[in-house]
């Protein structure tokens, strides 16, 4: 079997052959939904809900006092929306308090709201420069990126996720309404997470399972090692937060659908049907690269092999991926505009995400995907109790 990368007309070919080896590991367990109060925010560790919206805002707040007021308001609204309840009746002298799209009583218990800050919050406006998380910055422009900077970065990111799209829209409208004049939307992308087809990790729009190799989010010690910032070299207020990477990655699905299944599988490094690695039988078999130094079984430039080479040295680079599929119509040429809202959480931006992304430069898959937007954010620490508010430790 001959293998040809689509890039590089004049590059040589590499032989590849399937092999069989056995291995077994538990899959990623579903992580129960977090409570609104705790050491960490909700919507990070839990298994992605069916429907989500990510909105990045620029701040209209003029000083630190207004910023604190805004964050207190967001906390109050998020607390109500998450818990549920009956919106107050403001009488006939004012517009109604609630959009009403969830009916007279807002059902709680299903929604996760996650609030993160971008690096621009730490410029001169609010006197926060000395408190900036050390690695926070505008998103890097990687080789093969096609970033539209108007669709990148921003002061404050809100991620709203729920089991149904109307719950997401209700929360979004409530948050926008209560922050009028203080938050100006900059970019937005809506996502969805597919149910298992037929089992295991949800599939992305390339048809492949996505997230199979995630670290176990129910393993607290592992999450402390890979996801949560615990002070140290970082400003003290960051403890319990996490660096969040969002990348809106368009998939050129029409082109992808015209590529043979064997070429698709060699680019990804897994079987499309089962999700199994080439050296295994089932999805959660661990790919064996040690007995395959030349890439005979799994091509050396396969996506999963570059992303996670499964060595001791690269173990600490692993990230927690919480991506959503997006589908937003067609472009002006009539091509489908869909792809992945890649989202990852990590304790160390450079050691983890950036290192992996650099390793993926020029992988064969780049001809079929186009990163267009996103940003680096810092997901705030959790709200400890019902008096706490987003960013309290940062601003006080």
């Amino acid at each position: 079997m001959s293998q040809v990368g689509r890039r590089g007309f004049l590059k040589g070919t590499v032989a590849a052959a399937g092999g069989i080896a056995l291995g077994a590991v538990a899959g990623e367990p579903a992580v129960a939904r977090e409570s609104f109060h705790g050491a960490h925010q909700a919507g990070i560790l839990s298994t992605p809900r069916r429907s989500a919206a990510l909105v990045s805002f620029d701040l209209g707040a003029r000083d630190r006092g207004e910023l604190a007021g805004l964050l207190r308001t967001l906390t109050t609204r998020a607390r109500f929306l998450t818990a549920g309840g009956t919106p107050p009746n403001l009488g006939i002298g004012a517009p109604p308090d609630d959009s009403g799209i969830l009916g007279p009583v807002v059902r709680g218990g299903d929604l996760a709201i996650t609030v993160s800050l971008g690096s621009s919050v730490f410029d001169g406006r609010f006197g926060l420069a000395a408190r900036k998380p050390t690695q926070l910055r505008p998103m890097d422009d990687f080789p093969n990126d096609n970033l539209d900077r108007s669709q990148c970065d921003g002061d404050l990111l809100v991620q709203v996720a729920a089991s149904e799209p109307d719950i997401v829209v209700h929360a979004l409208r409530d948050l926008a309404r209560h922050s009028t004049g203080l938050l100006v939307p900059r970019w937005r992308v809506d996502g969805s997470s597919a149910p298992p087809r037929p089992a295991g990790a949800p599939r992305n729009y390339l048809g492949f399972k996505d997230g199979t190799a995630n670290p176990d989010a129910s393993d607290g010690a592992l999450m402390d090692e890979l996801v949560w910032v615990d002070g140290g070299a970082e400003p003290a207020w960051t403890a319990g937060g996490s660096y969040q990477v969002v990348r809106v990655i368009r998939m050129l699905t029409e082109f992808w659908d015209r590529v043979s299944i064997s070429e698709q599988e060699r680019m990804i490094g897994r079987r499309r049907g089962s999700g199994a690695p080439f050296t295994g039988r089932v999805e959660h078999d661990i790919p064996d690269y040690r007995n395959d130094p030349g890439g005979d079984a799994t091509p050396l430039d396969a996506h999963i092999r570059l992303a996670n080479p499964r060595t001791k040295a690269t173990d600490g680079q692993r990230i927690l991926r919480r991506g959503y599929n997006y589908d937003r119509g067609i472009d002006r040429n009539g091509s489908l505009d869909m792809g992945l809202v890649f989202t990852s959480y990590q304790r160390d931006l450079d050691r983890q995400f950036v290192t992996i992304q650099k390793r993926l430069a020029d992988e064969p898959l780049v001809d079929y995907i186009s990163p267009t937007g996103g940003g680096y954010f810092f997901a705030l620490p959790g709200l400890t109790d019902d008096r706490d508010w987003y960013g309290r430790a940062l601003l006080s």
Partner: protein
Amino acid sequence: MVAALDADIRAGDYATARADWVAAHDAWSQLGAAYDAFGDDGTAIDGTADSLPLGDADPAFTGFHRVEYGLWHGEAVNTLVRFADRLETDVAQLAGDFGGRQIEPLDLSIRAHEIVEDALRLDLDGTTDYGSGSTLATVDAELTGTTVILDLLKPILRSRYPGLAQTDRDLAIAQSDVRANAAHPLVVADISRLAADLAPVASICEPRRTS
């Protein structure tokens, strides 16, 4: 052709230089350099400013489209001539490099498919137009390039690809519509159909394991 372009820009004759540019870029497009076929040389010659941090103003933005940008935006001669010189050098460099390279037969079959994918994704959506409005001329040249490659592969395809006659017909229709300056949706439909026709060519030409 690139030399004439350079000379006319140097002389400040932009009207002639624009015609030179369209002719030279057509010739380039016929080569079917889709999908990074010529690597870094190809990017220097025909890359766009799309993925560059500073866009149009990025110093790494060179080649046909940089010259196009200057010619159709009234850029000063002494600025534009630097990019025209550079284009001439890069084309000469590729010609030198190319002589020493071998082309894998399988690469050719992938090219037959991917030139039209490029036309669909990059040219027809306007990504590669920097002012000349020559998109349809480029697509026309790309269809000519596709025809040349397809003809080379016909000895292999004739007995193996039942869709070959239809592909030929769709190719002819597409080229005739493009030359007639047909409505945009019709051209997109033609090229999409052609991309679907050509997709199996690479896998048909790919040697397979029999075990």
